[in-house]
């Protein structure tokens, strides 16, 4: 197994804290949360109390002023595999950075304190029914009415969508220009803002994935994030980090699947032998171990580059693509090694298999990643004409 060198001593101390907290406060609730279709609001507040939310926030907002990405990696590694519905990464490293980096001082002052305590749970609403990865196709409209904007439209597949009380919504601000998109902070309780169903899905049962509806929602001008025409550009600026935190979670889940499978195949016997000792099992596990280690090496390399501020969008796409594909192969082979047990809910591998299936799709499908990487290589008709 690859000897990871990215962490220092303080990180490992933090890891122990996280692990102890999660064993006590998070993991025991898994079954209930899966039945509820979402985690509890309390666990968000508990995470806030621990200082696990948006650590980079200024101390005056209750944050730690700590922007070291590795602490969020540790959260992803320790919590994600065993409680996949608790989307700390989304809050901390996907939506939070918009508030931290692109919001007005007034917005930061207004929202950040509760974002740090966990009273406000963040979400971002881009996808619409029928658009998928194609952001240029969104139809939600925002019309400038002088001192406020009026928002109309609907969004779907919104993670944290059921619990969120502060959601950043992408909407077209010019009916004639598909690329003019604004980002709006929409708050719980704004008239006309409704949640639809908490969608049932293949996996991630404790993650609330919802539809959101906007029916003449009046959004005050103070809630616009940056340039109301420049939302696309803003979204692009955060993509590398978004994909990277995803990648960490994917490898971590695959690693967990590998580890419970190791236990299973050394314990379970068939034809008089532990099934792990059959050559086929040994070879499969050896191949998976190798792919996992390549995935860790690539991910950690990208994290280092990211910390140096030089991770390209293409490299982040490579990390997302590679780790999610490795994860898919790992959970599939690991389930197979469980035999019939692997199909039963009572064995964790069955949940990991179902949870993992979205990784190749969300935050940009594998196909979109290949487009990004391939265009980065110059393999694009449009660039040549």
């Amino acid at each position, binding site marked *: 197994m690859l000897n990871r060198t990215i962490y220092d001593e303080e990180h490992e101390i933090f890891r122990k804290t996280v692990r102890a907290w999660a064993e006590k406060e998070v993991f025991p609730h898994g079954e209930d949360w899966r039945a509820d279709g979402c985690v509890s609001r309390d666990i968000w507040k508990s995470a806030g109390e621990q200082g696990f939310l948006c650590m980079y926030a200024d101390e005056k907002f209750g944050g730690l002023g700590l922007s070291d990405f590795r602490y969020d990696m540790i959260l992803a590694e320790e919590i994600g595999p065993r409680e996949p519905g608790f989307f700390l990464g989304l809050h901390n490293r996907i939506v939070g950075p918009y508030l931290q980096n692109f919001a007005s001082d007034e917005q930061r002052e207004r929202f950040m304190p509760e974002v740090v305590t966990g009273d406000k749970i963040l979400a971002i609403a881009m*996808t619409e029914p*029928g*658009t*998928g*990865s*194609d952001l*240029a*196709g969104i139809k939600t409209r925002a019309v400038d009415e002088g001192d406020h904007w009026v928002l109309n439209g609907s969004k*779907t*597949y919104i993670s944290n969508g059921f619990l969120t009380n502060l959601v950043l919504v992408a909407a077209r601000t010019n009916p004639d220009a598909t690329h003019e998109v604004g980002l709006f902070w929409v708050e719980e309780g704004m008239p006309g803002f409704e949640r639809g169903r908490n*969608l*049932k*899905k*293949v*996996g991630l049962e404790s993650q609330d994935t919802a539809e959101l509806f906007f029916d003449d929602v009046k959004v005050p001008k103070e809630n616009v994030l940056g340039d109301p025409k420049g939302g696309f550009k803003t979204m692009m600026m955060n993509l590398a980090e978004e994909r990277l935190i995803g990648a960490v979670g994917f490898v971590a889940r695959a690693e967990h699947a590998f580890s419970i499978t190791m236990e299973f195949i050394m314990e*379970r*016997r*068939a*034809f008089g032998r532990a099934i792990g000792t*059959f050559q*086929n099992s040994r070879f499969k596990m050896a191949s998976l171990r190798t792919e996992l280690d390549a995935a860790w090496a690539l991910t950690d390399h990208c994290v280092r580059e990211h910390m140096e501020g030089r991770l390209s969008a293409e490299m982040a796409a490579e990390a997302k693509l590679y780790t999610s594909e490795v994860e898919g192969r790992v959970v599939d082979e690991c*389930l*197979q090694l469980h*035999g*019939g*047990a*692997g*199909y*039963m*809910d*009572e064995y964790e591998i*069955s949940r990991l*298999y*179902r949870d993992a*299936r*979205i990784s*190749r*799709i*969300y935050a940009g*499908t*594998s*196909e979109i990643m*290949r487009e990004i990487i391939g265009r980065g290589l110059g393999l694009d008709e449009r660039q040549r004409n």
Partner: protein
Amino acid sequence: MPFPRTHLEPEHEMFREQVRRYLKTNMSAKVPKWREQGHVDREDFEAFGENGWLCLWADEEFGGLGISDIRYDQVLQEETIRWTDIGFFHNAHSMLVGPYLDRFANPEQKKSFLPGAVSGKTIMAIAMTEPDTGSDLAAIRTRAEDCGDHYLLNGAKTYISNGIIGDLFVVAAKTGDKRGQIGLFVVTADMAGFSRGRHLKKMGLPVQDTAEIHFENVKVPKENLLGDPAKGFSYMAECLAVERTMSAISSLSHAQAAFDVTLEFIKDRRVFDRPVGSFQNTRFIMADLRSRLDSAQAYLDQCVLLANDDKLTPEDAASAKLLCSELQGEVVDAGLQFHGGAGYMDEYEISHMFRDARIARIYAGTSEIMKEIIGRGLGLGEKDLR
């Protein structure tokens, strides 16, 4: 134009029309209810029985049609999967459990069990697998002790399909201490000491009730022993080729249906101003799957003809099962991927197909066991080749 299937005659296609009409009119709409409650209804088996579609092979004296041409079973399975749900396991009743009665039951046993099996009043299941045995059937622990006029049955079975709604179980139990000394017994749910355990929750196949069952000092009358009490193992081996062919049929039917659902979706769903299906990557992957589906179908149909003539080798049945279940896995995975986020949502059929398909590479013998069988057939067994 679909690749022509030459092994079906006009009468099979007429039968298909009849089945299809019935399923679309009378059963398709029940699927959500089945999924909700976790099993089909007794009336569904009975409806199949009334149509004459259970245990087609059974003699007319037992109410059957005496049709041993399994192309009819193939058609029935293809249509069931396309128009209802892959979890409606009437085929397991007719073609997985049934053949044990057909081949090894004596005339009295047939008289007493077959009429219910044919009418659907008696729903049948097979109980082989035990906790911790998996594919290693010789390692089972359930024991049947010879007590003169009856056997005393003790043990537990798991992963039993039709385990909740089943009335009659063909149970494998050790009848002696030698490895593989196994007998097969007909146990009915009304026997004292028989009980059902948990209705197991699983990743997919919600319509199929999978359960544990327990035997605590169940007195099984000697009349319920099938054939020789020491030959259960070879009886099982004898029935496995047909079971695996049927499993391959289910997998391939499911894969074909998933392909079609996906093809429709990608022609319709647009992204970047074009239908998803018009992208070269999508087109190439669908093309590759299409060619493999056609190839698998041609092979499987040949296997069906061979099985009809009792000429299908265990190796070839294993090949068909291996190929079709692996292909099914690839088709549902690619199909879900091309659905994007929608594919992960329960409201899209492909999400059910993805979950339902994962067991196919495991049950009726895992892909690894299939490879053992085929590989040994090549003379590469560890014991044969030294």
